[in-house]
């Protein structure tokens, strides 16, 4: 057994234990760690945004464009910068509508780019993988492929919103829920291992890096 002599390890170990104390109940130590975490992580993102976005994407291009008298380049960076500054009008109730412009830029951009790829990945690829390409009654895998098709079709039935879920629609969508439940059980079961691995990682840190009990 050899206790760690590094102050950093002690800090990390202390914070690790305070978080685990939350499992017993909420307490001042957890609260302390929580506020440290929130404060430090926001501070970290500020530093990252400063170095990774503000300087390389705004500061340097603006300066370079200005020094080189590259006016189109200046305007190119200035427009989004000014748009970004419009967010600050949130602080002035009378003019707060100006903040809608940068929001509109973002909404238009994200909604526009999401449509076509989601047709490809969410629809085409899924459908392509489901259609039967042949059926051989003597081969087991053909039957499983058929089961897959039935599963997809019945699950989709569950998502019909404008039909009453009665009769054949009701029965099919209930079959769909069976598939969904089995899928959820499976996902739950096979996630356990990954989650326990995380705990093992922390315990190894405490026992090995900090306390030095484990070799």
């Amino acid at each position: 057994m050899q206790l760690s002599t590094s102050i950093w390890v002690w800090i990390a170990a202390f914070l690790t234990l305070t978080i685990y104390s939350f499992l017993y109940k909420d307490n001042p130590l957890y609260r302390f760690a929580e506020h440290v975490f929130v404060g430090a992580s926001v501070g970290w993102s500020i530093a990252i945004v400063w170095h990774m976005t503000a300087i390389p994407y705004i500061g340097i291009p603006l300066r370079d464009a200005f020094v080189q008298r590259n006016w189109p380049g200046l305007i190119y960076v200035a427009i989004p910068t000014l748009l970004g500054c419009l967010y600050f009008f949130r602080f002035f109730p009378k003019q707060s509508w100006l903040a809608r412009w940068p929001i509109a830029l973002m909404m238009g951009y994200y909604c526009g780019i999401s449509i076509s790829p989601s047709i490809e990945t969410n629809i085409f690829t899924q459908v392509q993988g489901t259609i039967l390409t042949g059926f051989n009654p003597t081969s087991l895998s053909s039957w499983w492929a058929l089961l897959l098709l039935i599963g997809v079709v019945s699950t989709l039935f569950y998502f019909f919103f404008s039909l009453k879920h009665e009769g054949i629609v009701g029965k099919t969508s209930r079959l769909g829920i069976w598939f969904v439940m089995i899928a959820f059980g499976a996902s739950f079961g096979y996630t356990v291992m990954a989650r326990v691995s995380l705990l093992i990682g922390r315990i190894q840190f405490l026992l090995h890096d900090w306390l030095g009990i484990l070799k």
Partner: protein
Amino acid sequence: MIFKKFIPAVILVFLGSLPLSGSAVCVQDVPDDDGSALIVSWEPPGDILGFFMYKIYRKDSLEGEFVQVGKSSKMENCFFVDKDPRFPLNSGMNVVYRIVALDEEENEIREIGVSEQFSPSHSYFNSTKKNTVVAVIFVFTALITFLNLAKKDKNLFIRKIAGLDALDEAVGRATEMGRSVLYVPGLSTMDDIATVASINILGPVAKKVAEYETKILVPNRDPIVYTITHEVVKEAYLEAGRPDAFQEDQVFFVSQNQFAFVAAVNGIMMREKPATNLYLGMFWAESLLLAETGNATGAVQIAGTDSVTQLPFFVTSCDYTLIGEELYAASAYLSRDPVLVGTIKAQDVEKAILLILLVLLSVLAILNFNFFRSESFLRFIMSFFGT
């Protein structure tokens, strides 16, 4: 991706073009791109022994010099895709390629040939995306058609969605207990459409909360989402006729760090003990951390997400869960606005068409497989979704 797109193109071009060229080295444009790639192919020299690979040289202008842009390491590989950011190609350039055969020690043995001058070209339409265009246009038309139909027919039916019916009750419970409602609009940014869907639900929920004179807490992970949820909640209080009851710190930004956000929200749950927790939007691993802590405080919990991997955890630890598309249907369901309900109808029609395609094409494929056995027919079927 490059691989998926190029190799078929390479093979097609390679097979189709060899005999056409007069020179031993043939240059082809890669179709459906922005003119930044070319395919070079050549005939292997049949007469010499001891050559193992090729070097590919390129000259970008008439008076320029040949620069090595690549190497093909197998003697059978008689083609090369030139797309390297170090040696960029643009439409309008006139390039010439030169291929040299090498021996095992990478000494140049012999020149295979020099190509004719070639200029890469760019396309105005990516023809491999034809199917997607058709689908987008179809979805667009379906939406608009049903919007107009919905305006005429005010009583379109929507099936019961238990999780949304329970919202009212859940907010009412918070009012009775004199505690607040916690609304987590997911942990993602606006580029997840689930966040947008969540914001569409937040409006009506916040309004209801304001009407009941209860407090709603909205912690945010993303600053942009924060600015929007702040506006939405403020507006809802105004609409409910209680603008004075809205406090600035009800809707707040926590941290962009996923688990710092969770640590803070868990703390809030333990201390403020909200009577109702709503988790709607995009969630990752934190789903269970939030939902189980909420469970421990005895709150009524309603979740909704399109994150397939997290649904099992919400289903097991929340009272109600909106599964996938139900989240997107929620704003229409809550508002009963005929226009929005019309869009749900449009989604159902799209779904029906998908179902018909799935079943019909499968049946056709089975028939074909068992009776006609035509390869080209099978390819025709698959080409419906060919990506």
